[in-house]
């Protein structure tokens, strides 16, 4: 076993091995901190890389509209088409960006907003998704906490997410374990960048790199067979339907949402909350009490911050969904067009100074009836309602 010819300078071999490994890891760790943010949070970074040059570096600055949210937003808002139509209609330089990132709830939305703000992206209008499942959890810990991974957070962000109930003891430990060995801690991001085909589909982050200049990636364009739709709905029931039965509004998630709205008010950013479309079956999974609590919370937010709720739950027919909550490309087209017609077009038609008062004047979240609804009410899938 001990072949002396292969072990002429064993001490030097071990020394060089250790030195080169440590140097390479430290170099990569520093590179991620300074120059390669896409290896820390690829999903965020590839979108920011598309958005920043169009806004921060542009001269004159375009009108910037950003929608923050989860995979529902990612699949539901055809920002590319919407931006084109808004540019055409208003003959001005508009950037509309879909910042939907899977599993991003109120805390992640706040984080993403702060990151964008720090890099100089200052949107004039921010659309914030209301995803009830991501508002759930215990008082102290939001449901969203389950999706956090240490390798996707910058160190200073651990303190931020901790403020909103995300347990950070494990995250902090993982962060410090990952930092000195980034080739392991960030392996999925590195592999996604260089050898995506060696990764299982669910670990690949390469899809996000293909989003276009508006953050849109038309993923679900092939029509679904009834069997595929049935399977997708079964999954949705397991992942969302069952947890909805024991829905509890999380105080921590609500605080994060409030903080985002407070920051927007502080920075004079116009905001609208958007409850994304849901299929009729999916809507039936909400216990009555849960829906009442969500609406009550949104009324409070509306009153406190003067932001409207765009209740788009009924905007799309059941055929427009994959699983009752994620939109198919056809459903996305319907939602996007109605969002343009009912919210964005009226807002953009006004001078910027009037946006806040206009948004505050349209219906408060959770209210039923009233002139706006009466004026806009149409049957499911064909109506236009800003509630």
């Amino acid at each position, binding site marked *: *076993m*001990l072949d*002396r*010819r*292969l*072990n*002429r*300078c*064993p*001490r*030097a*071999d*071990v*020394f*060089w*091995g*250790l*030195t*080169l*490994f440590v140097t*390479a*890891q430290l170099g990569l760790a520093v590179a991620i901190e300074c120059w390669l943010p896409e290896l820390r949070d690829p999903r965020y970074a590839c979108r920011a890389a598309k958005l920043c040059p169009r806004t921060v570096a542009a001269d004159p600055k375009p009108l910037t509209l950003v929608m923050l949210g989860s995979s529902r937003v990612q699949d539901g808002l055809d920002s590319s088409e919407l931006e084109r139509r808004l540019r055409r209609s208003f003959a001005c330089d508009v950037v509309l960006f879909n910042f939907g990132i899977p599993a991003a709830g109120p805390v992640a939305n706040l984080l993403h907003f702060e990151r964008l703000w720090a890099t100089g992206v200052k949107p004039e209008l921010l659309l914030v998704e209301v995803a009830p499942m991501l508002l759930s959890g215990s008082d102290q810990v939001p449901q969203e906490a389950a999706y956090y991974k240490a390798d996707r957070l910058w160190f200073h962000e651990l303190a931020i997410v901790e403020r909103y109930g995300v347990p950070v003891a494990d995250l902090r430990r993982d962060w410090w*374990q990952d930092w000195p*060995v980034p*080739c*392991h801690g960030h*392996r*999925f991001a*590195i*592999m996604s960048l260089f050898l995506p*085909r*060696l*990764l*299982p*589909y669910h*670990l690949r982050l390469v899809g996000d790199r293909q989003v276009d200049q508006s953050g849109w990636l038309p993923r679900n364009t092939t029509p679904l067979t009834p069997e595929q739709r049935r399977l997708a709905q079964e999954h949705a029931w397991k992942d969302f339907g069952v947890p909805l039965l024991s829905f509890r509004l999380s105080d921590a998630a609500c605080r994060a949402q409030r903080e985002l709205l407070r920051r927007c008010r502080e920075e004079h950013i116009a905001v609208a909350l958007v409850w994304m479309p849901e299929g009729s079956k999916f809507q039936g999974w909400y216990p009555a009490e849960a829906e009442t609590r969500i609406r009550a919370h949104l009324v409070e937010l509306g009153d406190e911050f003067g932001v409207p709720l765009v209740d788009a739950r009924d905007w799309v027919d059941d055929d427009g969904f994959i699983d009752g909550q994620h939109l198919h490309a056809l459903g996305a087209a319907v939602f996007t067009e109605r969002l343009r017609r009912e919210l964005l077009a009226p807002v953009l038609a006004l001078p910027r100074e009037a946006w806040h008062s206009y948004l505050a004047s349209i219906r408060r979240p959770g209210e039923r009836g009233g002139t706006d609804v009466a004026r806009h009410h149409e049957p499911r899938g064909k109506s236009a309602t800003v509630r």
Partner: protein
Amino acid sequence: MLFCSKQYLLFFLLVFAVHWGLPWRRARVWLLLAASFYFYASWNEWLAAIVCVSSLVDYLVARGMDQAEGPYRRRALLGLSLTMNLGLLAYFKYVNFFLRSLEDAMTAMGAATSLPVLKVILPLGISIYTFEAINYTVDVYRRRIPAEKNLAHFLLFILFFPHLIAGPIVRARDFLPQISRVKRWDWARLNVGVQLFLLGLFKKLAVADRMSLFADPVFAAPEQYNTGALWAATLAYAMQVYCDFSGYSDMALGSAHMLGYKLAKNFDLPYMATNISEFWRRWHISLSSWLRDYLFFPLGGSRGGRWQTVRNLMVSMTLCGFWHGAGWPYVVFGALHGALLSLHREFRAFCQNRPRLDQALQTLPGTSSRIALTFITFSLTLVVFRAQTLSAGLGMLAHMFSRHAGMGLPLAIVGLWVTALLMIAGHVSTYLGWWRRPLEAAPSPVRGFGYALTLSLALLLDPGADKAFIYFQF
């Protein structure tokens, strides 16, 4: 505590540092003993206690055998040791299998009955340390080795953490003298340990765990996949099981080397074997040689007639299969290999009388074909080994040899082909010794770069499955 986990890394670094920091040989033994107990107890402290108690009994029995003059007393003590060791193994590993089989048999005979299922936790590595204890007491009984007088040394032989869970199965006559030997720090030994550990880590994380992504979903529901996917999953599993187990063995050998101990080599390029007999001389060598020395030879080996040899092979290999797990798929796997070994003996005799056929088989194409045939045959028996049930395994084999519609592989197949090509290249170059000369000539920075690259690639390619080693369950 997996060898490829951060906990093990910290644990090992601590043990390594304290071990070489201690100037006293006896203190080092006690340190390793304490560390080994902690290693096992970190999983289950009660079962660690059971291992210690059974080892203590073996120690006392062997001492008794050593001192006893009369053959009856020695035989009785050996019987006691074997009964205890095999009894514990039977209880922990096989009791529910026996109860289930009895229930099935009674049901088949028309007696509707329901036997209880015992809640038994299978102690990790029970098959390994049981065989180690048996080889010790049998060797003492045969007077091949004297009984170990030092209890700490004997306990360390059984409990030494690098081989405790999944082998290699250590022989007392190889290991006990090493404990008594004075150990001095040796950079060459450390270097070899590092090389073996890195190689094992790469095999486990970059190959075995990655291949499990192809194999696991298909073996979980083989009826849902098409014929091509079934073949690909079989190939993936063949690579997985080899790299998982030989990776573990390499890491065990590497860890032991770094602490100044040498464990027996457990794998020797098994997929380069040209026939199934050679395969078993290259695969899990410590188990094959144990079965040969403590089962096949005592049964008569190949000294008897043709049918006696076949019987001995069938018994040894069926028990080999049963050793792997309490289930009919394992028994059938073992029996299949017994039959293959018997067939190979017949074929060898057939070739001996036909020199032209024999010569043709020795040519490069002939040898390549034999290697390929041995690999494919072994892979096909792995289908039964890996399947959830015997019927599922046989069903999968049937679908592999007919056109079966279904889903394709769950992952892009390029990863499988790249790994297969790398495996072939690695096997061939090692077999032919191609890497030796460049490695001998390479300066230290280049070799160091090789270490750093191997470690980085292992960590980078880890699919994050956090899978335990396959052989932990045996």
